[in-house]
């Protein structure tokens, strides 16, 4: 029904784009719009989609000759550029921050193991903790970290699990996370560190961090906003991938969610089991390989299992503390 409304709205968007409507068409459009107020929303949506597509196609790389015919349709790209100017302006400011980081890196000594406050989360618990310097740490399930903050340095030891840091800007006190022998350093930045296997996974959402393995300071590598990297404790070149959308999903735990976009059921279950005492099991490799899409609550394995089963044509069996998904 409403699919149809969207389609008719698209037709009208194209007709309006083709030029001014004549009187009969204008009457026809008004009559269509009058039937349901929602249709005006659908028309705005269709025209905005067209404007977005025009903007996308006007990116560098697409040739855009300026033939100045003064038609109304030629300006949306320019107009939307003006609307976009604000956010991109803010990005430039971030670039400045990265420069400041570079300036502060020289002459910082390695800091010995720190004691200080210890914070632990239970299985299923996600905690947001303000730190003494104005930074915040969001600590994921089943994690343990120690915080040492004084007037010379800010140091976190991530003994287990995963945490996301929003770092208060302070050039004088570098903010360093130690995950085993992996080091991550930031000035004013937001990033997460997760201990995994023989190293740590680092996701950067804002600013720039610098990472290396203790004892191999020569391998220092920068990761900028939108980048992710797995840094192994075994010395190996550090590779950084740009993956802003994946990062968005990978950090959904901060709001108690697991975000999946085609990842396998097996992966989803392994992630979900980090959060719950009641474990989910998948029977069969075929089933474990099924891709899933959607947001799920991390603290609700039963609902997850039911949803995953219905998406994959499987069924759920509960046996004691184990929730089993099988075909």
């Amino acid at each position, binding site marked *: *029904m*409403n*699919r149809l*409304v*969207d389609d008719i709205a*698209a*037709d009208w*968007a*194209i007709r309006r*784009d*083709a030029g001014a409507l004549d009187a009969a068409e204008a009457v026809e459009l008004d009559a269509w719009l009058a039937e349901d107020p*929602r249709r*005006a*929303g*659908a*028309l*705005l*949506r*269709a*025209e*905005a*989609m067209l*404007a*977005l*597509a*025009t*903007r*996308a*196609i006007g*990116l560098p790389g*697409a040739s855009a000759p300026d*033939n100045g*015919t003064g*038609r*109304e*349709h030629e300006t*949306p790209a320019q*107009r*939307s550029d003006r*609307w*976009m100017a604000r*956010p*991109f302006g*803010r*990005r430039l400011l971030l670039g400045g921050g990265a420069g400041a980081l570079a300036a502060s890196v020289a002459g910082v000594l390695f800091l010995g193991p720190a004691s200080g406050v210890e914070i632990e989360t239970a299985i299923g618990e996600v905690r947001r903790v303000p730190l003494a310097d104005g930074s915040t740490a969001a600590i994921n399930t089943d994690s343990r970290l120690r915080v040492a903050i004084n007037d010379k340095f800010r140091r976190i030891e991530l003994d287990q699990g995963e945490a996301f840091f*929003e770092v208060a800007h302070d050039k004088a006190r570098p903010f360093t996370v130690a995950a085993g022998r992996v080091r991550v350093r930031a000035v004013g930045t*937001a990033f997460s560190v997760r201990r995994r296997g023989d190293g740590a996974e680092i996701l950067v959402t*804002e600013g720039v961090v610098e990472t290396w393995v203790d004892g191999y300071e020569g391998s220092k590598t920068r990761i900028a*906003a*939108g980048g992710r990297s797995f840094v192994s404790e075994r010395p190996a070149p550090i590779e950084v991938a740009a993956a*802003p959308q994946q990062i968005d999903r990978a950090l959904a735990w901060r*709001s108690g969610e697991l975000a999946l976009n*085609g990842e396998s059921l097996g992966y989803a279950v392994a992630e979900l089991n980090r959060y719950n005492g009641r474990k989910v099991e998948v029977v069969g490799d075929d089933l474990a390989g*099924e*891709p*899933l*899409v*959607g947001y799920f609550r991390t603290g609700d394995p039963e609902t997850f299992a039911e*949803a995953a089963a219905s*998406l994959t044509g499987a069924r759920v069996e509960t046996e004691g503390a184990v929730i089993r998904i099988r075909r």
Partner: protein
Amino acid sequence: MTRSRSEIVAWVGSNVVPHEADLRARLRRLGVPEDEVSDVVQDAYLKITRLEDVSHIDSGRAYFFTAARNAWLERIRHDRVVRIDSMSSYEGLDVMDDVPGPERQAWARVELQRVRDHIEALPERCKTIFKLRRIEGLSYREIADRLGVAERTVSSDASRGLKRLMNAIAGDARDEPGKAGSSVPSAADTRSEETP
């Protein structure tokens, strides 16, 4: 079209439309039935249609999600059928805007590239028409002459292309069987039968 409307359209294109797929996914996850998701999305756009000005809005995403939340609330109040989980579902729309700014911006650039990819994936003639119109600014008449087809064919292809783009941008591959990604099951596939 007044000037301010076309400005709002451009603003909506850049600041609201890129979040539509997220909103739809969120609505589905909250248990909003598939056939009502499009209604709620249209209602949210309708609320934006009524704006005189958009320059006071900092976050298109937050505004859009709030509009959707309010639309859903009104629906729950007026609806013939009130679902058990509907009250908890509108609360789920509250936590929408917790994504930090720069993260969102980086994402917006990726989104533009995705839209470009969608355009590249259009059928050949749709794509040609689209580019001649959007980049070179030809009229549909001129495009018809250049391609040697009827003007009506050009506008119907333009329509077809826009519909495909809209579905792709909305993250809704239902109308595009055989496209990459259609093997991935979505909640939509299992929840409701097609009701055209």
